[in-house]
């Protein structure tokens, strides 16, 4: 197994600021918009972006939630292991809001498909956008594309993109891992 650095801490920081600005451009004061980080790995990115928007761009309040899609996945009973759930925390109304899904890596699109079903349990959003830090091109199983993307990556199926966050893994870095 070998791994190479796709993005360093400095590069990630620049991209996060660019993504924050793109969100700001489309949503301005975030009064009609809610950010939803997808469990388990999308929540770190969602928290970071909300922090940048608040602290560096003066957005006063942002509704930030976490959505777990385990019970909506299409591979229940298809793997060897029981699918383990994570915490969902959405303590605001989604009805008629603009929802931005936030996830670290967009790969087959199946998680986003599940998330689109899951979010409907909380109401009918006006529209749903998708923000992803890494977009793995040419590997989609479903017609799903991100609205905002950090970096596009061409990786073959045997490779894995590993996103590490300082608060969880000790440093900000993204690796491309070859098995």
């Amino acid at each position: 197994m070998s791994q190479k650095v796709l993005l360093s801490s400095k590069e990630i920081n620049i991209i996060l600021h660019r993504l924050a600005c793109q969100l700001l451009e489309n949503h301005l004061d975030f009064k009609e918009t809610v950010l939803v980080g997808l469990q388990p790995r999308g929540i770190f990115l969602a928290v970071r972006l909300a922090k940048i928007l608040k602290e560096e761009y003066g957005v006063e309040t942002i509704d930030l939630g976490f959505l777990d899609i385990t019970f909506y996945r299409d591979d229940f009973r298809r793997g060897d292991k029981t699918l383990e759930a994570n915490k969902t925390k959405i303590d605001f109304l989604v009805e008629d809001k603009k929802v931005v899904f936030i996830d670290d890596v967009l790969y087959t699109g199946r998680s986003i498909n599940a998330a689109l079903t899951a979010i409907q349990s909380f109401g009918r959003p006006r529209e749903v956008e998708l923000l992803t830090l890494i977009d793995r091109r040419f590997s989609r199983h479903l017609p799903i594309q991100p609205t905002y993307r950090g970096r596009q990556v061409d990786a073959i199926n045997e490779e894995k993109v590993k996103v590490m966050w300082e608060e969880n893994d000790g440093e900000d870095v993204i690796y491309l891992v070859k098995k």
Partner: protein
Amino acid sequence: MSELSVNHLLGIKYLKESDIQLIFETADHFKEVLNRPIKKVPSLRDITIANIFFENSTRTRLSFELAEKRLSADVVNFSAGQSSVKKGETLIDTVNNILSMKVDMVVMRHPNPGAGIFLSKHVKSSIINAGDGAHEHPTQALLDSYSIREKLGDVSGKNVLIVGDILHSRVALSNIFALKLQGANVKVCGPKTLMPKHIESLGVSVESDLRKALNWCDVANMLRIQNERLDISYFPTTREYTQQYGVNKALLNSLDKEIVIMHPGPINRGVEITSDVADSKQSIILNQVENGVAIRMAVIYLLASKIK
């Protein structure tokens, strides 16, 4: 640990402590699901579950059926009263006939102890015991412990008192197994005639004085007097039972501390507990019922994910 160690839920006796924790953690997630505007997830859309009840039930059956439907499973219901069981069909034949219609899981209540265990050895299906005679009622014990955990933060180290007919109670036995497994201290209290011999061998202590026992406990689980199982007279009159083993508000108020009151239902109001106790702030009886759905969703979800 992300998988149950068993393929059926036949009794708490066959579970490990880690199984109980996994069920509770999963139930936490389902409890959140049940508070959403749309209380349904699509996980079990390709699973069919048969609820087979050879004995009456309202809350357990309703709770199981709701749990199954909230998980999007297909549900078929069967009561022995209107079935070919009356014509003399055996249990294995009945269940195998149901299973040949492509049913993946069976939830069964039966008046005979061990019916679920027997069935699990003879049919190819995941079995959940919803009460087998005076033996076990595992989902009730799980939801009882889950409700204690929710109210007091933890089950370990808590003093739990079980009052009433210990002899005929599957709720008592499953609760004792579950509570001991989680490190709680358990005491039982009731008429000597309704106390099984050698009950101490399960690691519980016996107290015949209700006031003393209540002063000791953090939680009191008041069992129902099951008139349908009392084939002979175990106590002189219901009134005498109530005087010695019933809990009323005056008794609760005279204790040194505020304790939590539980009851597996259905309540005989004025017998085990009075109405003002059942409806008081100390009672978590309706929380138990609410948690029952989340617990059963967790059990079904975890067992279904092992069906290949």
